[in-house]
């Protein structure tokens, strides 16, 4: 059964490479060979997809820039809120999740934008992004009926939570504190950068091909479903 062993081994190697998102086939001959085989060898493809599925992973794309993996919330590879930042309050947790959604919506506002060529990337500077988000939240908060003074903080609209963090408090050494909107955006982008999904270019951030694929093939749908299921009348 050496054929099966080899297939399993190679599938493992390929997924191992894929889990190091900043690795590039162009710079790693073994990775390049595996990517090539994945595209031509139906058996390897089947085994790799199956193993990935078992790990709660989804192969979203296999191309010249490598493998793009998506993952389900149940996967052992999923980013957990507690791993992202310890001891977040409910407010901070929700704000962090919303920022991820807002970043994707800023870069790809429409389905049409999302369907653009994989290689087309977008850039962003934090200040412009925060200004855009604050404007959006302000307009939504103005039309929102619930009285912010009534009820517990958890019952307020999420846009108000974001607005509360909008002012740029600075620490003594001039850095943004982690609890302001700008600071939270920076930490989200830094984490995305670790996953090879965005890149820092000078004082801007640029989305990558992998990010577009991640959002288009998985996260966009997941977010749509999540928000729909969160709406109170859906239960």
């Amino acid at each position: 059964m050496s054929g099966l062993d080899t297939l399993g081994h190679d599938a493992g190697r390929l997924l191992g490479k894929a889990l190091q998102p900043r690795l590039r086939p162009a710079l790693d001959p073994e990775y390049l060979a595996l990517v090539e085989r994945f595209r031509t060898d139906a058996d390897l493809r089947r085994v790799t997809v199956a193993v990935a599925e078992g790990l709660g992973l989804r192969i979203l794309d296999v191309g010249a820039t490598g493998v793009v993996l998506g993952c389900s919330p149940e996967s052992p590879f999923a980013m957990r809120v507690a791993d992202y930042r310890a001891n977040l309050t409910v407010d901070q947790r929700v704000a962090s999740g919303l920022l991820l959604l807002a970043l994707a919506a800023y870069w790809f506002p429409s389905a049409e934008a999302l369907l653009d060529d994989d290689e087309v990337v977008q850039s962003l500077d934090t200040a412009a992004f925060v200004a855009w988000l604050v404007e959006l939240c302000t307009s939504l908060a103005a039309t929102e009926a619930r009285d912010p003074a009534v009820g517990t903080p958890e019952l307020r609209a999420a846009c108000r939570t974001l607005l509360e963090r909008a002012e740029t408090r600075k620490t003594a050494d001039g850095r943004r504190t982690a609890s302001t909107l700008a600071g939270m955006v920076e930490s989200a982008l830094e984490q995305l950068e670790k996953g090879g999904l965005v890149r820092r270019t000078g004082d801007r951030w640029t989305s990558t091909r992998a990010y577009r694929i991640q959002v288009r093939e998985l996260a966009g749908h997941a977010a749509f479903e999540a928000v729909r299921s969160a709406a109170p009348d859906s239960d």
Partner: protein
Amino acid sequence: MTTRWEQDLTRRLRTLLRTAPLHQVEAAKGHRALPLADQDLVALALRTLDVIIEAMGLDEGALHAEVALALDPLVRAADPGLEDSAPVVELVIDALTNRSQRGEVFRIPYTDFDGGFVRRELGFHLVREVESEDGRILLRATTEGINLYAGMLDYDVEDAQTAEEAVLRAQVERGRLSQAVDTARRARQRSIQYEEKLRSFLRTARRDVRGVDWVGEVLQQIDAALRHLAERLHVERDLRTQVQRRLDETEVEAPELAELASVLDDCVTRHLRLQQNLIGANQAWLDAQARQSFRPRAALPLADLERDVLRPALVLSVADLDPVVPALFASFFGPVAPRVLALDQLVSRLLAPARDAAPVDRPLATVELEPLVAPVRFDDADEQQVRDWLDAARAVRLSTLLAAARAEGAPPRTERLLALEVLRAYDGADTDGTLVVASDGERLHDPRFEGDDLWVNPGSEGP
């Protein structure tokens, strides 16, 4: 007979409108915080397109840094007092990529008289940022962007290319070489343009395999393109042979001929590469089909993230949203390989002696260094001159020697060497005794040197 002025007008109008983004940024420059009064942003934008298109000839596109390098002298020439040209350069790039609208298509409204009076919208990109396979972020001009720069807004690129080469051939045959070089450069621009046109066509075709009539439409287009390319290659090789023949025969016109040869070589290489891509296009399409078949894309159409997802989410309550945050984290961050605790390593690490504090990780300022060369204080001519003076010295005072040297017009450097040689002989430590120098306590009166006015004698004689 019906005049078709309506169609013509609409076509020309759409052509004209593609320059609108450039005029808009120029018109709005007064509202920016940057000192832009002296900058011609339209010219800078065109130069940017030029740099990008040129880079697309050699590479997949231009780096921001390449554009900055090319624009810097222009920006500074317009405003010599400017400290940093980078903000102006970025502004121009932003204008071309439509970054204020988050990189979306430029949407320019216009009136279409063809078929009544209809308000329409023209959508196009000029420059896009792309990620290359090796992970660099590059700027690429779109077909519209290249058209805008090439000033060839109203023609088919295939026709223009054919015409350009006919002109080129005539110029080479008549020996009008400097014009031929210009024409060849334009022909190369057409090649880049044609390449971009085909590339975007193939990309669109591949993106959604189900939405394209591959056999009926795409394969036919590819066939036509291959025929066009075969013609181009034939003509270009023919021209290249002519140029080579002239190059072998003549010496006088050589620089222009050499340039012509290199531009033609470039065109041939580009067309060969394009031909290969086209021949492989069918296989690439089959691969794309295979790839998209394993993609687990959900059957439902994509949502508009801003309108359908973000806005509804922002008005939900914090308590409602909290349960779905883990799903957002998992899907947007992608997988993260968890670190597994290796017990054996943990134990040995914990038992290991404390290491020195890690060195401070601080970015080093890049300093431009020049190779260190010991400065030459006295050259051989100085040494020879001084030796000559001292050889001729017979019981003279240092002041006399210095005055004589000055009278001869010797440079201060030689004077200084003279004084130093005399001092060295006075010290006596490492001289070979050819010179005897003594002091009688007399002060030296000299504008440049201070000390005793020494007596200088050849070694064999006393003072």
